[in-house]
C-alpha cells in the first residue's frame, strides 16, 4: 500500500481526527478502489458510517459488534466496518438483528437501514422489533428516495416531489403522505430511545454524532430498542451538488421531519431480563409427557417388516378425523414403525372434508403426503366422493354409511360400509364414531396390534370415562366387520 499522498504537518501538533479503528485499513471490494468507499461524492452514508464507527471506537465495543446491513446503497457496509457483519434480505435486518441479539446477548447488534428498506418493504419487521423492545440499535438513513435503484418514490418522499415513479410529483391521493417513522414508533410502548437528526451542516452532524453514540451506548447499558433516524443527502438522485443537497436536508427535509428526541426512556426503562434458553434435550420427554426412551423406539417387529400404510382419514370437522389419525400414528410409533401425521384443515375444510394423512412404515417416511392411499377412512359422503378415486387398487375403504352411493363404487378396492357413527351413538356417544371405525379398520386390515392402539388411546385420552368408552367402541367396530351387509369386503 502506498502511503497517502499528503504533506506532513508542522512539529508539535497532535493528530486528533483520522480514520476510526472500526473501519478496515483498506477495502477489499474492488482492487482499484481500496481507499475509497463506493458511495457517491457527498453521500450521507459516508458521514453516518463515520459517526457510527466513531461511536463503536469510543465505546470500545468493536470486538463484539455485529452490524446488519440492508439492501440499498449501504448493502456494502460490511466492506468498511471491521466488525461482525451480516447482510440481510430486503427490509429484514431488524428480524435478523433480533435473532443475533437473542442468541448472543453480549453482542452489540446494529441494524443499519435506509428508508426504502426500513420504511417500505421492511415496515413490518421494524414495527414488531420496536414493539417487542428488542435490545438492538437501529441506524435509519432517510434520504426520502430509493437511491440505489435510481430514484423511485419512497414512503418518505415529500409531497409534490418528483421521482421516477411520481413524475408529476408525489400526490397524496395516489401515494399518500410521507411516513414519519420515529413518530410512528413512538406510539409504541417498548422503544427506549428515538431521535431524529440530520446531516444538513456541521452543527447537525455534531448532534447526529451524539445521537448515534447514544443509540449504541443504550445497548451497551443493556437498555432496549433504540432507533436514530438520520436525514441524509442523496446528491446523485436529487440531481444536486453535494452542497445543494446538504442545504435541502437542512432547509426542506428537516422542516418536514422535525429534528429532536421523540422518546427517551433511558432513565426509567426496565432492563430486559437475560434471555431464557431452551430446556436441555433430556428434559423434553417429561415436558412433552412422553414415556421413557425404551418405549420410544422399539425395534420393528417382524410382522411389520414390510409395513407401508398410506392412510387418509376424511370427514366433517368434529367427527374426530384428526384424532383418529393421531391414534393411528401414535400406535405405529409404539409398535416401532416410522410414522407421520399430517393434518389438513382450515377455512376451506369447514363443513366439508377435513382430512389427515397418516403414514406407518417399516422404512423412514419420505413424505408425509398421502396421494395414493391404501387405506381410506371416509366418515361422510363428500369424503368418499372426493378421495375414492385416489385409492390404490386393492386398498381398503371404510365408509360411514349403510352403503356407498351407486355412482361412488369401485370393484378393485375392498370397501366396507357400516353406520359407524350410529353404532357409537348406541354406545352412548356419537363422538366415538371415529374409534368404532378404527376398530373395524384394525379387524379388516390389521395395520397395528390392539395393544399399541390401546397404549396410544391411553396417552391421548385423558378422561377415564372416555377412555373406557373408546375401548368399547374399538370392540364394537371389530364386531361390526362380521355383521352381514350388502357391500362387504370381498
Amino acid at each position, binding site marked *: 500500500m502506498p502511503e497517502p499522498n*499528503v504533506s506532513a504537518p*508542522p512539529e508539535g501538533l497532535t493528530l486528533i*481526527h483520522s480514520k476510526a479503528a472500526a473501519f478496515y485499513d483498506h477495502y477489499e471490494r474492488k482492487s482499484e478502489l481500496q*481507499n475509497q468507499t463506493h*458511495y457517491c*461524492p457527498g453521500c450521507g452514508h*459516508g458521514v453516518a458510517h463515520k459517526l457510527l464507527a466513531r461511536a463503536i471506537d469510543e465505546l470500545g465495543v468493536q470486538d463484539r459488534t455485529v452490524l446488519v446491513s440492508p439492501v440499498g446503497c449501504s448493502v456494502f457496509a460490511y466492506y468498511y466496518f471491521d466488525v461482525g457483519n451480516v447482510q440481510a434480505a430486503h427490509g429484514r435486518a431488524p428480524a435478523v438483528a433480533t435473532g443475533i441479539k437473542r442468541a448472543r446477548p453480549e453482542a452489540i447488534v446494529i441494524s443499519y437501514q435506509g428508508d426504502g428498506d426500513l420504511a417500505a418493504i421492511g415496515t413490518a419487521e421494524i414495527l414488531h422489533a420496536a414493539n417487542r423492545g428488542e435490545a438492538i440499535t437501529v441506524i435509519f438513513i432517510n434520504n426520502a428516495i430509493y437511491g440505489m435503484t435510481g430514484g423511485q418514490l419512497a414512503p418518505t418522499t415529500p409531497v409534490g416531489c418528483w421521482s421516477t415513479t411520481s413524475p408529476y410529483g408525489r400526490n397524496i391521493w395516489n401515494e399518500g403522505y410521507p411516513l414519519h417513522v420515529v413518530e410512528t414508533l413512538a406510539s409504541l410502548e417498548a422503544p427506549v430511545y428515538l431521535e431524529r437528526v440530520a446531516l444538513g*451542516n456541521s452543527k447537525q452532524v455534531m448532534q447526529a454524532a451524539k445521537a448515534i453514540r447514544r443509540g449504541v451506548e443504550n445497548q451497551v447499558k443493556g437498555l432496549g430498542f433504540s432507533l436514530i433516524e438520520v436525514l441524509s443527502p442523496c446528491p446523485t438522485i436529487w440531481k444536486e451538488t453535494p452542497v445543494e443537497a446538504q442545504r435541502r436536508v437542512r432547509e426542506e427535509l428537516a422542516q418536514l421531519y422535525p429534528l429532536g428526541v421523540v422518546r427517551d426512556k433511558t432513565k426509567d426503562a426496565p432492563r430486559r431480563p437475560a434471555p431464557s434458553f431452551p430446556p436441555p434435550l433430556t428434559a423434553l420427554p417429561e415436558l412433552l409427557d412422553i414415556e421413557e426412551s425404551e418405549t420410544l423406539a422399539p425395534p420393528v417387529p417382524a410382522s411389520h417388516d414390510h409395513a407401508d400404510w398410506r392412510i387418509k382419514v376424511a370427514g366433517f370437522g368434529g367427527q374426530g378425523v384428526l384424532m383418529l389419525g393421531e391414534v393411528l400414528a401414535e400406535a405405529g410409533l409404539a409398535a416401532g414403525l416410522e410414522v407421520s401425521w399430517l393434518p389438513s384443515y382450515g377455512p376451506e375444510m369447514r363443513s366439508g372434508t377435513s382430512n389427515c394423512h397418516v403414514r406407518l412404515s417399516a422404512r423412514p417416511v419420505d413424505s408425509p403426503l398421502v396421494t395414493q392411499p391404501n387405506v381410506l377412512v371416509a366418515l361422510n359422503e363428500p369424503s368418499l366422493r372426493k378421495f375414492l378415486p385416489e385409492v390404490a387398487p386393492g386398498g381398503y375403504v371404510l365408509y360411514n354409511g349403510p352403503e356407498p352411493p351407486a355412482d361412488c363404487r369401485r370393484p378393485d378396492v375392498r370397501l366396507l360400509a357400516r353406520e359407524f357413527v350410529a353404532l357409537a351413538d348406541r354406545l352412548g356417544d356419537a363422538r366415538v364414531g371415529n374409534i368404532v371405525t378404527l376398530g373395524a379398520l384394525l379387524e379388516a386390515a390389521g395395520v397395528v396390534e390392539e395393544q399399541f392402539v390401546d397404549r396410544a388411546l391411553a396417552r391421548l385420552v385423558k378422561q377415564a370415562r372416555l377412555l373406557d368408552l373408546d375401548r368399547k367402541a374399538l370392540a364394537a367396530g371389530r364386531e361390526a366387520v362380521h355383521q352381514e351387509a350388502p357391500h362387504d369386503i370381498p
Partner: protein
Amino acid sequence: MAAEKPERGYVTIDDEECKGCGLCVESCVPKLLRLGDALNRSGYHAATYAGRGCTGCGLCFLVCPEPGAIRVYKRLQAA
C-alpha cells in the same frame, strides 16, 4: 510581517481518497479549504488546504463522507 504565532492546527487531505464533494470547503469557518484545479486519479477535484491558519476545529473531518480522507492535527494545551 511580525513573528508568526505557532500554528494551532493543520489538515491533510488524501487527494486520492477525496471525491471532491466540497462539503469540507463549505464547513471550514476560516475558509482555508478549496477544491484543487487538477483532477485526481478518480477524476475528482480533490480538496486542498491553504497550508496556514487551521484552528484544528475538526468540522471538515466531521462532514467529510470518506472515512480516512481528512486528518486533523491540533496543538494541544499543556495540561
